[in-house]
């Protein structure tokens, strides 16, 4: 099976869907001639032309809203945000228009649109460019949101997102674009709303989504030396959330750690931790632990920014805590 990068996996998904359906187009800052700020759209302008790969002005609210209008009228736009940080300029469009049009029209309209781009901290970018914003989007009914952490999942979920008739956000990450993994040549789709057990284990369940998956995998490997057998549930999809896979795993291990690079207050991680605490209460052998980012804006200094985020060490400590070791 070919080994490709996360970046190429997303490009393949967009390329295949644009090839399959003429209604699919890509719009955003630098997606065309520049080939994408993170080179995700490399080559697509040459292949599909400027009618379908559209360089926008720096006008996030404008081109996000334009995409929503085009979707209402029957097209299937892919809106690239250079990063999720800049999507805050367009937050009103996503929350008040994309997520509400179907509802306010009593089911007459639909908004088949994908909003995608890197989310969460990279390195040395300080606070405005280093935010994990999935929680503020996950809060909104009417939206779907996925956070793939492997090239395989990225391609399969991106294709599902493009074919979905609802607004879907795809949270990628700068640091993940170069990650590599096996991606089959034959076509496949990963349904939105289905979690994946990335590692089978018997002693503790770690629930994670997006970039921190690698840290959890490292932590699990290190804990093998202590005889701890970690099960990793990769949510993959935040909304809708595959609660059943999480509960099944916790029912087996009786212990749960949730890892999320969001801030802890009212976050995806705190919500999942609450769900597990409530729905698995009778079988839990320890309180659910949450490993999140610290409740601070991200600083520029490298030691400080690393200290503010989840780490392998923090995850190991949390796992040991629920195991009382």
């Amino acid at each position, binding site marked *: 099976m070919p080994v490709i990068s996360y970046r190429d996996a997303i490009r393949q998904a967009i390329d295949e869907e644009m090839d399959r359906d003429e209604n699919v187009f890509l719009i955003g800052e630098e997606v065309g001639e520049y080939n994408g700020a993170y080179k995700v759209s490399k080559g697509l302008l040459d292949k599909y032309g400027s009618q379908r790969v559209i360089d926008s002005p720096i006008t996030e609210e404008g081109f996000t809203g334009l995409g929503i209008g085009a979707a209402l009228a029957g097209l299937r736009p892919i809106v690239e945000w250079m990063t999720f940080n800049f999507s805050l300029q367009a937050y009103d469009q996503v929350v008040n228009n994309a997520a509400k049009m179907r509802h306010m*029209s009593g089911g007459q309209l639909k908004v088949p649109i994908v909003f995608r781009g890197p989310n969460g901290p990279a390195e040395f970018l300080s606070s405005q460019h280093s935010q994990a914003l999935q929680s503020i989007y996950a809060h909104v009914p009417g939206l779907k949101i996925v956070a793939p952490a492997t090239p395989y999942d990225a391609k399969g979920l991106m294709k599902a997102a493009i074919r979905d008739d609802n607004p879907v956000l795809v949270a990628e990450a700068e640091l993940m674009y170069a990650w590599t993994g096996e991606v089959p040549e034959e076509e496949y789709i990963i349904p939105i709303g289905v979690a994946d057990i990335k590692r089978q284990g018997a002693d503790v369940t770690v629930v994670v989504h997006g970039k921190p998956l690698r840290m959890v995998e490292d932590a699990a490997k290190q804990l093998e030396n202590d005889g701890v057998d970690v099960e990793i549930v990769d949510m993959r999809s935040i909304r809708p959330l595959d609660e059943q896979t999480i509960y099944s795993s916790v029912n087996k291990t009786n212990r749960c750690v949730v890892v999320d690079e969001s801030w802890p207050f009212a976050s995806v991680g705190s919500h999942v931790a609450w769900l597990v605490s409530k729905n698995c209460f009778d079988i839990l052998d320890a309180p659910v632990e949450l490993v999140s980012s610290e409740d601070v804006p991200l600083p520029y200094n490298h030691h400080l920014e690393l200290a503010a985020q989840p780490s392998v060490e923090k995850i190991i400590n949390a796992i040991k805590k629920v195991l009382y070791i």
Partner: protein
Amino acid sequence: MDIAKYDKSLLLKLLKDMLFIRRFEEVCGQMYGLKKIGGFCHLYIGQEAVAVGAIAALDLQKDYALTAYRDHGHALACGMSADAVMAELYGKVTGCSRGKGGSMHLFDADKHMFGGNGIVGAHLPVATGVAFKIRYRKEDGVVLCFFGDGAIHQGTFHESLNMAKIWNLPVIYICENNQYGMGTAYQRVSSVDDFSIMSSAYDIEGKQINGMDVLVVYDELKNAVDKARTDHLPRFFEIRTYRYKGHSMSDPAKYRTEEELSEYKKQDPILILKNRLLDAGLLSEDEYKEMDNECKTISKQSVAFAEQSEEPPIESLYEDIYV
């Protein structure tokens, strides 16, 4: 104004559409007073010539209309039924939006009426996107995007005009300047008094026209729509109009004088057209009364329809959110 150049049927349609909106809105006001309609309710009385004149220039098989929350007039002008609109105001399941939208969110996908949008200025990029679809598919439709004088200072106005110009999108932006953004006179919050110059920054033709005369609105928009069908270029109108009622039902409109209001009522859009038709012998007083009675009857019947309609079932709470 020489009205000989118009078809009689068009003139009568314009008059009736305006009169119908007037009567319908009066009934809405009454039903709001009786607490049959709740929430924010923005009446269109005084502004009828704008929606009626502009939308009469459209072919809603291929054209589209989007507006803000003062949307009853546009909905009716697009041909939505009084029953579907009134039932929506009542929050009933027979309403156009199944009781999920209310006064501010009237939609009819088949008639290409895409709202009924509640956030000031937020539908301008959306309307621009509908025009993008027309261009993408090489169709010859046109989008009318109505908004108020309050919305013109939102960034979305400027972002939208820029995009429409660089991508040649057939969208006609219509600022219905009814003089007050809620309770604020537009002159107090605008760097210019003449909004029509604001599009020139984006190299888009802008024009200020009298929105109390439905024939002026119709002529200008017909011309603009016809041109946009072939040249696909965006256009901008500031249409000067006036609302007789407060911003919403809760507003006594104390920020303006009685004299100002009565001055505008003298140039009432319905009165102007009615007198022209009477003078030209195209309408008699009796025929006008008959038309008026019909408008009142349909409005009242819509109340009966709404009253008799069912509330949406509680199970519908989780419907109409995802496809």
